[in-house]
């Protein structure tokens, strides 16, 4: 059993080691996070000076929301499957198909390693963020619900990224679509502004899209805007999106891999 899994554990470990070699990027990502936390605090304080608690979201809640969203971004902003796109682009996917491994599992393991490394950066980032802003700490039960919802949101993001990178089987180039996805998840997913601030009808429409599963759902659980009696419904929607996107990703992967096998790399 271990022998069968060992290559994938190694892939994950090597991915972590690889990320660690880009030391400069590590420092800049922590540094830019500190700057963004500070700027968002300035903006929200200024906005709230003239308008106390829009939609019942208090200043300390919105600052907590923003800071936690930025920390989550350390993980959610990573395209864990970009390796697939790179490999399709330079044709090196061929070499992976010549090895006795499952290629999608390899990609998953590599992405997991990458995410674990960047996830570890949350600790120093959080320490720095706490120097700049106050972050509310919810009860253990709420935090547990948040963590679970965050994991579900991560899986939604994984499926979205994987599907997107599979498109490179046909087009080789996906950076435009990718940029769009980043904007859409940030704006419509509630990564920058809580969806609560949008007009009611629009808010309901986008809240049911998969993007909201990534940021909005876990964050609203964290600041208490989704109450425990709505957890099941909120996380049910997340699970629904994982299932749907998982099926789509599998279909697209199969078609893409078949294309390599039939048409050549």
């Amino acid at each position, binding site marked *: 059993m271990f022998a069968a899994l060992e290559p994938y554990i190694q892939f994950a470990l090597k991915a972590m080691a690889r990320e660690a070699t880009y030391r400069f990027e590590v420092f800049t990502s922590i540094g830019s996070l500190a700057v963004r936390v500070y700027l968002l605090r300035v903006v929200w304080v200024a906005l709230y000076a003239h308008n106390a608690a829009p939609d019942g979201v208090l200043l300390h809640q919105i600052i907590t929301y923003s800071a936690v969203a930025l920390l989550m971004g350390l993980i959610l902003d990573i395209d864990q499957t970009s390796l697939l796109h790179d490999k399709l682009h330079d044709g090196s996917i061929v070499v992976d198909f010549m090895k006795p491994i499952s290629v999608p599992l390899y990609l998953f393991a590599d992405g997991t390693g990458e995410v674990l490394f960047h996830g570890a950066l949350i600790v120093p980032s959080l320490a720095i963020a706490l120097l700049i802003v106050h972050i509310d700490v919810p009860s253990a039960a709420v935090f547990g619900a948040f963590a679970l919802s965050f994991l579900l949101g991560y899986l939604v993001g994984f499926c979205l990224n994987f599907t997107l990178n599979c498109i490179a089987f046909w087009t080789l180039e996906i950076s435009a679509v990718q940029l769009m996805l980043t904007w859409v998840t940030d704006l419509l997913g509630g990564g920058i502004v809580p969806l609560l601030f949008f007009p009611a009808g629009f808010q309901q429409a986008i809240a049911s899209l998969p993007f909201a599963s990534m940021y909005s759902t876990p964050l609203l659980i964290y600041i208490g805007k989704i109450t425990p009696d709505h957890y099941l419904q909120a996380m049910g929607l997340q699970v629904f999106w994982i299932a749907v996107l998982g099926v789509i990703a599998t279909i697209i992967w199969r078609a893409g891999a078949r294309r390599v*096998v039939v048409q050549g790399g």
Partner: protein
Amino acid sequence: MPIIETRDLRKSFRSVVRGEGLGGAVGALFSRRYEEKVAVENVNFSVEAGEVVGYIGPNGAGKSTTIKMLTGILVPTSGTIEVAGLVPYEKRRQNARNIGVVFGQRSQLYWDLPLRESFELLRAIYRVPRDRFRENLAHFVEILDLERFMATPVRQLSLGERMRGDFAAALLHDPKIVYLDEPTIGLDVVAKEAIRAFIADINKRLGTTVILTTHDLADVERLCRRIILIDEGTVIYDGRLERLRDEYGTHRTLVVHLKDPQPDFALPGVDVEHGEPPMVMLRFDRRTTTAEALIRRVTERYAITDVAIVEPEMEDIVRRIYLEGYQKPPARATEA
């Protein structure tokens, strides 16, 4: 029982037909016309365990397509393949354990990792027992002289160093067969020789079967007793290298240094090329005339200071076959 066997192998690709220019490119987005391109057709060959076979042909002849089918990443359009008792595309992962692959133009090492860690990763991938791994690695480090850059990330290696690393990587799991796709491309003379010596060594010591595709015929002459020549997707010659030389290398060149320059030097029935005066080169068919007879005819008319006989180069033979096609056997001395 051959280790590799292909029967009536055929692979064709469908590609989009595109009009010219921007209009054509935009048009192709909406309506697609496909055309079928045959990459290889009627490829039949079998290879015995322990052979070193040169698989050669001009660019686009179908060499890579064949190699990809042998590794199991391409499915043939029709025909059958068996490699070490397996159908590669049906048992891709199992087949992968039996083979090692080296691409001159593409590395299988992990770009960001030190060479040593790439090897460690390959040990896990191929599940090489640790003792065996240590033994093999120690051996490769020694004969490929890898020690100096084992801790260097692959992206910082020179091409020669990277290729040596790639060879070790392809052979760590003791594959029965290795496919080498232009393994000496871009290397300097010393590095080329080191790689050739390594290939000869593993073939001799471990009995590894080697399929070598290359454009450098010196590789072939040094390593392969047998070659398979492929052109426009079909095998046009399969046999010993010497036989090709015998059949095709029928022309030798007599290089004559004349005592005085002779701008209108001519000899009836002999193909003459003028070199740097006073040198002339006479091309002759060794089956219809001897060097001795030719020299006699020259000396009857001209005063000479020196002669030399030049054997045909493998390069020239193959170039002629690429240009003119292979006729089997050449009907007669075809005078240019």
